[in-house]
């Protein structure tokens, strides 16, 4: 049997296909302006017996393809435990949201937090700031790590932070130092979210932002805990959905079990 999981985020869509508990295929695409069309294209020619959707666009998918859905929270928890069976905390910083999840010894979600409505503390924030400083997203973390001096960035709001950065640049501060300050501000926010759920070790860092080495370094420093990063940090949600699609008792929202 092949089980697929699709994670329809606001920025990207990920697809994972499992056969006999092994990942046999992973795919990714931008969400674009029409996430459903993108999702369908991604699925084109991909064989699967069952599929489950997660992520921000899961309900659109549920409606148009009649597939069961699961929240990102549970999908990330399940995916994370599959990759590292002893994970207790998951931090996901994605394109437009971030979340912290704590699971118990059996992998059951016991508490979670999500960021509020704005882009502060998400991948989008880093992306915009990299842009303002004239770095590519890949360079951004690498350059930040070369910083020699601490600069405090006080604005969390993307709009204010942008003007703060501009004035720091015009004051002659080094771009690397500013980049570091920006990374620190995102980590502070992530760390406070993690503290609210009472972080337990080991911590898995997932989502696109986990590929940024500077973020990982600062997070380790802030939490003083063991942090794991999977090979494909963006696939954790889709993987979790695929695993759940394989479970018989998979719970689907919207389409409640038939009445007894």
């Amino acid at each position, binding site marked *: 049997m092949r089980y697929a999981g699709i994670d329809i985020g606001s920025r990207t869509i990920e697809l994972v296909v499992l056969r006999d508990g092994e990942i046999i295929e992973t795919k990714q695409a931008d969400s674009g302006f029409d996430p459903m069309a993108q999702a369908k294209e991604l699925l084109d020619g991909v064989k699967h017996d069952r599929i489950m959707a997660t992520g*921000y666009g899961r309900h659109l998918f549920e409606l148009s393809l009649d597939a069961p859905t699961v929240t*990102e929270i*549970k999908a990330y928890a399940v995916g994370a435990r599959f990759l590292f069976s002893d994970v207790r905390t998951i931090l996901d910083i994605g394109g437009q949201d971030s979340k912290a999840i704590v699971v118990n010894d059996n992998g059951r979600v016991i508490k979670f937090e*999500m960021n509020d409505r704005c882009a502060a503390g998400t991948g989008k924030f880093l992306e915009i700031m990299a842009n303002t400083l004239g770095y590519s997203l890949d360079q951004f973390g690498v350059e930040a790590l070369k910083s020699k001096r601490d600069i405090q960035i006080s604005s969390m709001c993307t709009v204010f932070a942008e003007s703060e950065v501009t004035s720091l640049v015009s004051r002659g501060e080094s771009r690397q130092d500013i980049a570091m300050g920006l990374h620190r501000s995102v980590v502070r926010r992530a760390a406070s979210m993690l503290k609210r759920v009472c972080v337990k070790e080991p911590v898995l860092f997932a989502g696109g932002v986990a590929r940024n080495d500077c973020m990982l370094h600062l997070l380790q420093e802030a939490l003083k805990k063991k942090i794991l990063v999977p090979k494909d940090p963006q696939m954790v949600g889709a993987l979790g959905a695929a695993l759940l699609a394989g479970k018989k008792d998979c719970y689907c929202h*919207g389409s409640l079990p038939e009445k007894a």
Partner: protein
Amino acid sequence: MSEDYKSMWESLGLDLGAHDALLEVLGKGYQDIYLAQKDRPEGMSYFDFVMSEVHGLRIKELMDEKAAGRKVIGSFCVFVPEEIVRAADATFVGLCAGADFATEEVEKLLPRNTCSLIKSAFGFNLGKVCPYIESADMIVGENTCDGKKKSYETLKNLVPNLYVMDLPQMKSDEGKALLKAEYLRFKEAVEKLTSITIDAERLKKGIEIVNNKRKAIHRLAGLRKADPSPISGLDALLANQVFFYDNPVRFTESVNKICDELETRIEKGEGVFPKGTPRILLSGCPMAVPNWKLPWIIETSGAVIVGEESCVGERGTRNLTDDTGNTVEELMEGIVDRYFKVDCAIFTPNPDRLDHIVEMAKTYKADGVIHYGLQFCQPYLMEAMPVEKALEEKNIPCLRIETDYSMEDVGQLKTRVEAFVELIK
């Protein structure tokens, strides 16, 4: 018939264009949220009718009562004792509103960071779309949270018939004495307005009417202990909302009729959702019509709401008023005793509320509690933290939600609520 209403609305000074727009939104919301539900009790058709006529027939009734010399008294809080209003043959209506309206106008008078409940009351007033406000002979404001009590200073310029009631903030002897003094002052004001002297017999009658209404709601609440729940949380909330508008005797009959039907359902093991559906207790700020956002999200996310720890719910209707006294004095004492127990978050400290939430979670066999705090509502948002702690100590999962009347956060709320439902299953 609607032509009739038009002239009635016009005579009340409503802005007909804006009012039409409001009714359209209300009707659409009701259609999508209420009528879309499955397996509703037949008795709910009464409430469907009430809602469809909430600005029509019900207002006509109020106008007829007014023509017959009765007064209409509006209130923003469950601390305003309805018993006294009924004792003077006056009609009591809740004025809280649950939708944003004329926000730009409102923000000329109130700071942006005022809770939606207050803004909405102003919006309905400024936009001239609420026939209840317009038909009220007296509007009672009360000194509860800072937002309300300061906004009444401004509201007074808009509604000259505003009467402000002071309320205690602590459950002390002095606090109780203040409540008593204020209720006596209110009684006099009502007597003056209606030209009726409230004697013991009248007061007893007033207490009886309101107690009967509460008893019917208690009965309804009790039936929700069953699994499967015989009625949706949305429908039960609606009954609690209509509690504030309807003719009390007719309301009591209608709720009791629904309860008869629900009892039959329970006997047959029937419900609105399958047996074993995760059960949620909703706790926090009051939800006024048409603020159905969060309950609707919850009940379309695979859970059922089994109780409301709210002023539009059990906090508002808990405890009957003692009617055994024989003198006005004794009966007033009973009224003061009853209301002094209301555990609103404006009181400090307020330990009773934590106990009640834990107790309700157990009574209604809730699998988890969702705490609803309106953005910028300090009393309830602050209390949400100790609520969460008290529940976690008892191993009852709790999700804290902070939101307002806008729809822009629906997607995010849905994810949170669904994840919470997955967690408590």
